[in-house]
């Protein structure tokens, strides 16, 4: 019989990106015994790829900035579908979390007077992103990694969680395996924090690293946790489009934040023609005004290249569809003619090297070719806005895997601070919950044995399919039928494809040993990826309108009836998924005034500073 080792923790954190590490630190500070499981080596999580910065209304560059302006910007960007309480918690706490990182050793770029510098980004009214060149995510994860090591973190590296374990409706741990050896591990824990990141790998063109296979959403959903608003997938406007093998790799919004402009094949700055009604009057109307903004004129408005990501992504898609794209199916992003070469190399060093190395292109001399790439999922596991608790006792979620903060669309820079604000909250709440659990904990051995047998099944199935081929099919069909532009017939077709893929995901064949076997890993990843793909498609079918990251060709406009609902994706007792429309929580009057403020001056503590 297959053996396994048992590890006991008060709090088990699944995922060692920004949210997971911050949760672990918070739980350790509460005195909990904490285990952290990561599919990769420590410090390699997808967080390292975040480039532009972390949004926090510190007011270091523009003293007019404060949490209220950040609150309003975030809700506006999210089409008001955000959980207002989460946004309030987030915008109020983000500055403290940034300062805390500095006190743990992070070295942010500085203002002339020696404080943390902040840069412009799409959807933010003021320069608000604390940053380190274009490698802010690396700074964040390394700081948290170092601090967690100092605190005595116990990390299980290169370990995959295959299933959460339950007892009487509570989560009591997880079953996983060590990727290096293929040996199984049982983690018994009083509380589990999911910090597993996103799901970009269900799409063919994505900026996400391999780990973003949506594990946490599926694991949570399989034990009965609700998901929320899974239709809202963010396609970042600027991914690399050439050469083919780099398609999807991110080109940071920092390029536009530093003054980069988007042009079509006719040389026209098309974003001036694409300012939506709700943003009218807030952006520069002429190239001359945008130029003055770049030169630092505070009376000039921001250039329309800094509109929210959904707006820019769809404008690019429109240019390409109407025949004004670049040679390789994108548009041109030009910083070369806007800033001196030295400035570009200093402010955007990774971009400079990335294009030089992979595209053989000098961005200080030539424009880049860019197009939309799957980047982020706004929806996720539904959580309590204060504690990050899910509806399943003992289970918490933070970071990209949790839903609610970003509504229909996330502002760039809002995810890195999301990780630390809600990672901390999840770690605190999980540790408090764990401390209250005094009764005995049972991990059901039969449950464990059954899951292990399931996980090993591809080794005993010589007639099964190649998991890599299956994965390729999933990603290609999701891209085609549930991608940046959706319509009913394609979404319905995709549901049938997924039903078929779901069966086939349980009939794969792998060979070789269990030690570090990517074929086996892919076979097991597939089983979780089909589950979460189905949730995305079902939610997209239900939302018959276009809003935020979700665009329907058959319903191209926002529909007021959908403006006031969230989609709850719930597993029924027979195991199938269902979508339930639920009214948004009522916003208190004083917050509503802030959210709907037209004039930024009303929201500023220091007018005209």
């Amino acid at each position, binding site marked *: 019989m297959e053996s396994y080792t048992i590890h006991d923790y008060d709090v088990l954190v699944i995922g060692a990106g920004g949210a997971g590490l911050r949760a672990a630190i918070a739980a350790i500070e509460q005195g909990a015994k904490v285990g952290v499981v990561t599919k990769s080596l420590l410090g390699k999580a997808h967080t390292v790829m975040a480039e532009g910065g972390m949004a926090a209304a510190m007011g270091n560059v523009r003293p007019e900035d404060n949490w209220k302006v950040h609150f309003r910007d975030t809700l506006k960007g999210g089409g008001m579908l955000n959980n207002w309480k989460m946004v309030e918690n987030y915008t109020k706490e983000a500055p403290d979390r940034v300062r805390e990182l500095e006190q743990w*050793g992070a070295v942010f770029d500085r203002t002339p007077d*020696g404080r943390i510098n902040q840069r412009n980004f799409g959807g933010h009214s003021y320069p608000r992103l604390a940053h380190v060149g274009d490698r802010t995510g690396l700074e964040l994860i390394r700081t948290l990694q170092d601090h967690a*090591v100092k605190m005595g973190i116990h990390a299980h590296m290169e370990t995959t969680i295959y299933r959460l374990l339950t007892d009487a409706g509570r989560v009591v741990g997880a079953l996983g395996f060590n990727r*290096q050896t293929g040996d199984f591990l049982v983690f018994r824990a009083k509380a589990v924090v999911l910090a597993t990141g996103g799901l970009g790998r269900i799409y063919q063109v994505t900026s996400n690293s391999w780990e973003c296979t949506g594990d946490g959403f599926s694991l949570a959903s399989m034990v009965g946790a609700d998901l929320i608003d899974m239709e809202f997938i963010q396609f970042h406007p600027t991914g690399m489009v050439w050469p083919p093998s780099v398609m999807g790799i*991110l080109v940071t919004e920092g390029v536009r934040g530093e003054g980069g402009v988007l042009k079509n094949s006719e040389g026209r700055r098309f974003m001036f023609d694409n300012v939506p009604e709700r943003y009218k009057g807030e952006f520069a109307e002429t190239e001359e005004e945008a130029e003055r903004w770049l030169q630092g004129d505070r009376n000039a408005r921001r250039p329309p290249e800094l509109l929210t990501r959904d707006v820019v992504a769809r404008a690019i898609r429109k240019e390409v569809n109407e025949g004004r794209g670049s040679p390789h199916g994108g548009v041109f992003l030009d910083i070369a003619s806007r800033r001196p070469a030295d400035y570009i190399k200093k402010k955007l060093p990774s971009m400079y090297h990335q294009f030089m190395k*992979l595209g053989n292109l000098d961005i200080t001399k030539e424009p880049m070719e860019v197009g939309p790439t799957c980047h982020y999922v706004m929806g996720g596991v539904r959580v309590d806005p204060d504690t990050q608790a899910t509806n399943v006792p003992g289970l918490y979620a933070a970071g990209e895997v949790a839903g609610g903060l970003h509504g229909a669309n996330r502002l760039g820079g809002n995810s890195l601070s999301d990780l630390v604000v809600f990672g901390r909250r999840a770690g605190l709440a999980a540790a408090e919950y764990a401390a209250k659990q005094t009764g005995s904990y049972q991990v059901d051995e039969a449950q464990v044995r059954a899951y292990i047998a399931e996980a090993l099944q591809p080794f005993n199935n010589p007639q099964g399919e190649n998991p890599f081929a299956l994965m390729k099919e999933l990603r290609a069909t999701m891209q085609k039928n549930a991608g940046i532009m959706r319509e009913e017939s394609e979404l319905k077709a995709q549901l049938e494809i997924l039903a078929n893929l779901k069966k086939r995901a349980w009939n794969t064949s792998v060979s070789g040993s269990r030690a570090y076997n990517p*074929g086996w890993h892919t076979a097991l990843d597939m089983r979780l990826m089909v589950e979460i793909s189905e949730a995305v498609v079902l939610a997209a079918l239900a939302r018959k309108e276009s809003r935020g990251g979700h665009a329907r060709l058959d319903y191209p406009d926002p529909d007021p009836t959908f403006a006031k609902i969230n989609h709850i994706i719930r597993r029924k007792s027979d195991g199938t998924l269902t979508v339930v429309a639920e009214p948004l929580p009522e916003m208190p009057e004083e917050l509503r005034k802030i959210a709907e403020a037209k004039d930024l001056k009303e929201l500023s503590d220091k007018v005209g500073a």
Partner: protein
Amino acid sequence: MSTVTFRIFRGDRNGGELKDYTIEVQEGMVVLDAIHQIQAEQAPDLACRWNCKAGKCGSCGAEVNGKPTLMCMTRLDTIDTSKPVTVRPMKTFPVIRDLATDVKWNYEANKKIKPFTPAPNTDWIMFQEDVDRVQEFRKCIECFLCQNVCHVLREHDEKTGFIGPRLLVRTASLEMHPLDVENRLDMLKNEGGIGYCNITKCCTEVCPEHIHITDNAIIPLKERVVDEYYDPILGFFRRLFGSKKQAQTPSSGQAADD
């Protein structure tokens, strides 16, 4: 489109052999793309570590035609593909399987470095010119290619008394942080083994982040250790007035500034 043969190490801690895989390659492909194609079509159990495929995570270090490199940043059109392309795991670390090596020694050795210790009651004001140097060191993506080429670790396997270039860079980032007050010179001299480094600059050559490991991190740290332990005049004053952490500016100012 052309046909290229990849000669890839297959095996584990107990040994292995090079095996040939021939695939069709396309414009713009990097070595990691080739490995993935081989996995998907010919060898589904071919082990290789990677995460981001964008040169930001440092997971996919290997030796391509003998040269340590990130596979995701090595374009096929920059290497000779008319002959078989040899891909081996990093030599300094034990092989787990195929191209994946066991790098946990780096995480263990890292614990020898005292963590960031800010001055009490600091106002957190720092100027850009004072953090430029530290930011260079903090670009490190922990790919461990510098550890892989360092002859102290690679040829002499000195993993008990030496922490290697990556961890010397990390130490430098802490020692040169304008607000850090910890003293790590004793560690550098003793269990850190900075004296083992004889400045061959192999680490600097392979760094994908172009960190001037030798000139900007290791040499200034060596100078501080020398000043602290071997300078007779300073030693005299120290015996008179007691030892304290060195001022930041003198030795970081002496470092090569290219």
